[in-house]
């Protein structure tokens, strides 16, 4: 809870500052955009959060986004597959990748960093291979499918603002993920193995299987994210589609309170983290006239945020200690 408070406060401050500097920030159109982007990045960040909770890392997220994002339109337009067949292929590929990572990590005991780094290189390479580096996209077809990402759901009694469809995906994913993590046996076991794998194993938990599951979730959600991204953007170039998204996803998860040492994390925090990154980027375009220092600002704000969070925490601890000492002395 503590951890989420800090980041939420930061998000709030950034929103207030942006709103005061730009009156377009709170326009329905901009909010819809923000929500859609947060939803897309939120989905892949939640996936990564599961891996981080186990104490692992998944660097392949961006490349899985690329593989699915390029693969689906490629199958549909170049190979004329049907929509269900192409979606099935995407599901199989992304879950299969997660399974592969999980097995390499648990069976061969290879470090997650290495396995998923190879994945990062591999899947983008595969996408570049099969598309022959061609841009792929839906053109003006597949409107129905694309509504998954571009559709809007009107809110009763509210006009001028409607919910972007990806938000529904995020909502479903987040609720399922939160229940899964906090209320089911699987989630409990995942948290346990993240903080002390041996203890989990000694308690009869099939730690290998749980770890594999986490990687499957991560790749699966990366695949879903990749699909939604390409449906939203409508075209993908394998060389750069989803580049660096693993870092954004990990950053969102860590900002949202996931400890890279494992065993800690909340889904709400991850979404707040993803939102913060998107609001920052939005702010830079809305408020300034140059967007080339965007990343510098994101980096600086995150750093300032975690620093402030840490300092506040320390001050609180010191204050508490002082109060206790005073109470005891009295």
């Amino acid at each position, binding site marked *: 809870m503590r951890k989420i408070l800090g980041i939420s406060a930061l998000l709030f401050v950034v929103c207030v500052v942006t709103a005061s500097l730009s009156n377009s920030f709170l326009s329905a*159109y901009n909010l819809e955009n923000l929500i859609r982007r947060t939803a897309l990045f939120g989905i892949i960040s939640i996936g990564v959060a599961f891996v981080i909770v186990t104490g692992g890392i998944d660097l392949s997220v961006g490349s899985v986004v690329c593989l699915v994002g390029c693969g689906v339109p490629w199958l549909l337009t170049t190979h004329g597959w049907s929509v269900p067949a192409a979606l099935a292929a995407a599901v199989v590929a992304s879950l299969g990748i997660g399974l592969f990572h999980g097995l390499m990590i648990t069976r061969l005991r290879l470090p997650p960093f290495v396995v998923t780094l190879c994945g990062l290189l591999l899947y983008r390479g595969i996408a570049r291979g099969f598309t022959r580096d061609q*841009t792929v*996209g839906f053109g003006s077809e597949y409107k129905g499918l694309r509504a998954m990402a571009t559709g809007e759901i009107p809110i009763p009694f509210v006009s001028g603002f409607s919910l972007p469809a990806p938000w529904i995906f995020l909502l479903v994913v987040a609720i399922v993920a939160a229940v899964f993590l906090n209320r089911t046996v699987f989630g409990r076991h995942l948290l346990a193995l993240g903080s002390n794998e041996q203890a989990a194993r000694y308690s009869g938990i099939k730690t290998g299987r749980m770890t594999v599951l986490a990687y499957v979730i991560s790749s699966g959600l990366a695949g879903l994210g990749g699909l939604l991204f390409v449906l939203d*953007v409508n075209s993908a170039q394998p060389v750069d*589609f989803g580049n660096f998204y693993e870092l954004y996803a990990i950053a969102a998860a860590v900002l949202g309170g996931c400890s890279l040492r494992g065993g800690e994390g909340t889904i709400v925090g991850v979404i707040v983290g993803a939102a913060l990154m998107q609001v920052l980027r939005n702010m830079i375009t809305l408020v300034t*006239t140059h967007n080339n220092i965007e990343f510098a600002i994101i980096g600086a704000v995150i750093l300032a945020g975690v620093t402030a969070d840490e300092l506040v925490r320390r001050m609180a601890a010191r204050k508490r200690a002082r109060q206790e000492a005073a109470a005891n002395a009295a």
Partner: protein
Amino acid sequence: NKSTEGGSGGGGASSGGKKKVAFVSNGVASFWTIAAAGVKAAGEKVGVETETLMPVEGISDQKRIIEDLLTRGIDGIAVSPIDPVNQTELLNRAAKRTPLVTHDSDAPGSDRAVYIGMDNYGAGRLCGDLVREAMPKGGTVMLFIGRLEQDNAKRRRQGVIDAILGRPSNPTNFDPPSGVIEGNGFRILGTLTDQFDRAKGKANAEDALAKYPDLGCMVGLFAYNPPLLLEALAQANKLGQVKVVAFDEDDATLAGIQKGSVHGTVVQNPYMYGYKSVEVLAELAKGNQAVIPASKFIDIPARQIRKAEVDAFWADLKAKTGAK
């Protein structure tokens, strides 16, 4: 003292007697895929082996590719230098070992045999003229581009700006990307870059629409930018309301012209870049210097495509690239 190494240099080194030439791009894009089709077609016609290479990681990658090509022993290289001024030395080193031409973007200070391509500044001006055409009464304009540090990008953008503002032609102008430029009834509100991240490119378009609800015209200067503009406009229900002027010949752009949501585009002729490069290199490899004009410039002009020209152009393009 390099004469001893194996596999390098002279044309005779290639296997099977067939000459081998390479076409090196400045990055990865569908633009270059069209060029690759031209490379292949020319290779088949003049009877040389061809290869198209696209660096992923910018300059250092391009350098590595050229070095490795020289290692392998190549009979000619056509390259689109990313940073012509600073790459001069690399180009000169390559030119010593094999025939070298530049395409798409020139390196005038280097020992390259000839430049095959167009003038980006001039093409930019053609694009700027389309903006003025689309908005005869003037208005606000936002520019969208992948990156600004590439020489061709800089010149192209400058051409657009100068033409919109009605300035005389001067390729050495430079307006910094931040800050509003005004004149001639137009306000150019800024230039947004996306580093080839399409989601970001689309977000840029959306943010511009949010920031300037009454934006007049959006100009997409890299091939993938106009389609992203169209996506953003479609989702904001502003198709047709905001003018779009494009660069290059993405399918979505051409379809947009057909439908009227894009006013027009400026197309280069990447197919001819590839085709001509291979033709020239094949001759140079045979020792025939006569293909080089005195100006050391083989012009492959850019053209404007509006609704009237689009159907014919598209059909021709499909025929060349073998697309359906």
